[in-house]
């Protein structure tokens, strides 16, 4: 069984982002970029399935500028078999990403596509669901456990009230939540090996996909800052403040 994994290049989760002075976006020059953490979990899950003998090939795909190659290399170093890079410098909204993925799915015919539940830059949480809808495939979002069989999958999902389990027929789309697994670090020998693995490059035009954005970003601004930092000396003082100053208890 073939698995397709979508990996997005995003500003590293440890970076404290800065809004550009002209309010057109956030500063990305000289900022550390990494694979979206949920996508690392997606790659890890695919590798574990391969190690368990349930999956024969893992294809990692990333869409965006030339540097996305690095993100694909990371996936290859972790254990993916080959990469696909859809090259574009345009802004990609989730709907466009889903359409590109659909076009690639038509060529690659995977039985399972794994995505992160959410990209930590746009915080959209849409792409996997959109892809599933466009393909008319079932979906298992926010997965914390996967039991993959040859024709179906049982997926345990993190929902607001706790956990929910569903069963889907393959082919299907799954999106990862934090507790699905703990992604491995790529070892040095595997990083070297990954340099020899193939990355195919294509473009939205070649795939015949219209990626024109539907939303115009009018402005990106900083959120209101909180004035914190006041320290108190005792719990008695705290309870007094909460009762009489803040009046919240």
């Amino acid at each position: 069984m073939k698995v397709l994994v979508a990996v997005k290049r995003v500003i590293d989760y440890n970076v404290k982002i800065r809004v550009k002075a002209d309010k057109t976006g956030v500063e990305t020059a000289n900022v550390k970029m990494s694979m979206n953490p949920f996508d690392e979990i997606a790659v890890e899950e695919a590798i574990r399935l391969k190690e368990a003998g349930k999956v024969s090939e893992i294809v990692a795909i990333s869409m965006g500028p030339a540097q996305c190659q690095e993100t694909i290399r990371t996936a290859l170093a972790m254990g993916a078999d080959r990469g696909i890079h859809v090259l574009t410098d345009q802004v990609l909204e989730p709907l466009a990403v889903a359409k590109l993925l659909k076009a690639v799915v038509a060529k690659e015919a995977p039985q399972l596509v794994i995505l992160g539940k959410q990209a930590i830059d746009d915080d959209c949480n849409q792409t996997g669901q959109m892809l599933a809808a466009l393909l008319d495939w079932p979906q298992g979002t926010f997965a914390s456990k996967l039991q993959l069989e040859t024709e179906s999958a049982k997926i345990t999902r993190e929902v607001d009230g706790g956990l929910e389990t569903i069963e889907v027929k393959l082919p299907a789309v799954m999106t990862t939540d934090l507790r699905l697994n703990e992604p491995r670090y790529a070892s040095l020998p595997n990083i070297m090996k990954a340099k020899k693995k193939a990355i195919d490059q294509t473009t939205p035009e070649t795939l015949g996909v219209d990626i024109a954005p539907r939303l115009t970003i009018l402005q990106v601004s900083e959120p209101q800052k909180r004035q914190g930092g006041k320290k108190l000396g005792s719990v008695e003082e705290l309870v007094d403040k909460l009762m009489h100053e803040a009046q919240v208890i």
Partner: protein
Amino acid sequence: MTSLVIAEHDNKSLKGATGHVVSAAAAIGGDIDLLVIGADCRPVAEEAAELTGVTKVLLADAPALEHATAEDLAALVLGLAKSYSHVLAPATTFGKNFLPRVAALLDVAQISDISAVDGPDTFERPIYAGNAIAKVQSRDTIKIITVRGTAFAQAKPGDKTAPIETVSAPEANKVSHFVGAEIAQLARPELTAARIIVSGGRGMQSGDNFKLLESVADKLGAAVGASRAAVDSGFVPNDYQVGQTGKIVAPDLYIAVGISGAIQHLAGMKDSKVIVAINKDEEAPIFQIADYGLVGDLFQLVPALDAELAKKLTNR
């Protein structure tokens, strides 16, 4: 201009999240139809009909919809969506699961997690874990939107009762079905609805130690939350997680105990009215946003706080 709001409920009563979405729809303007999808859920529709601002309630009630899948919810909503200018659902795991499917099938963008309405086609939404706010304008004919509950007041029952119309559901899909759920039985208020939250992090060291927080929570009528580290360590279940990728909360009072204050945690609670931090590390980032901080060992401070609350709150 008419909005369609998809109600979140448990087949018995409406979830609070729905009321926040109705307020967001009211800010957009025009009529508001509210769609209730479920099994044996007419009481939910009756409750929805009382909400201020609701013009009409649509009820899709069928046994197969008891645990409707994203596939089935999307198919049903898709059938109705074309007669609306806006389709809205809460940005909860319920809304996030099916609404993007509707958007894709209509070939329109989804605007996720809006925190303000600036006009019928212009919305604000947090990005980068709430460290930036994007103002976006949609060019699509139908706007598909999920709503951040904490950013909008909750619509309350008013003096008018909206009419209820039934709608039929398409046949259930054959590729996906519900198997089971482990839904926590809460002895305390739900996180997103609580007025006060006491949250614990890795500093709590064990699930057993959360009893210290529960005791405080019970005195305050509070909910108990947690950081990702506390959930990942198995101290508490996943539904306790507050943050960028957990629940977004904005209570009157948030007490963070043994939580360092990572960006991803702050993303879920920094809009709380009053924040208290208890941490032994005076450099912990949580103090930068806390209105009141206590530096010290939580295993001394929390029991002391508990005792002080017992004393002060009973003497009132």
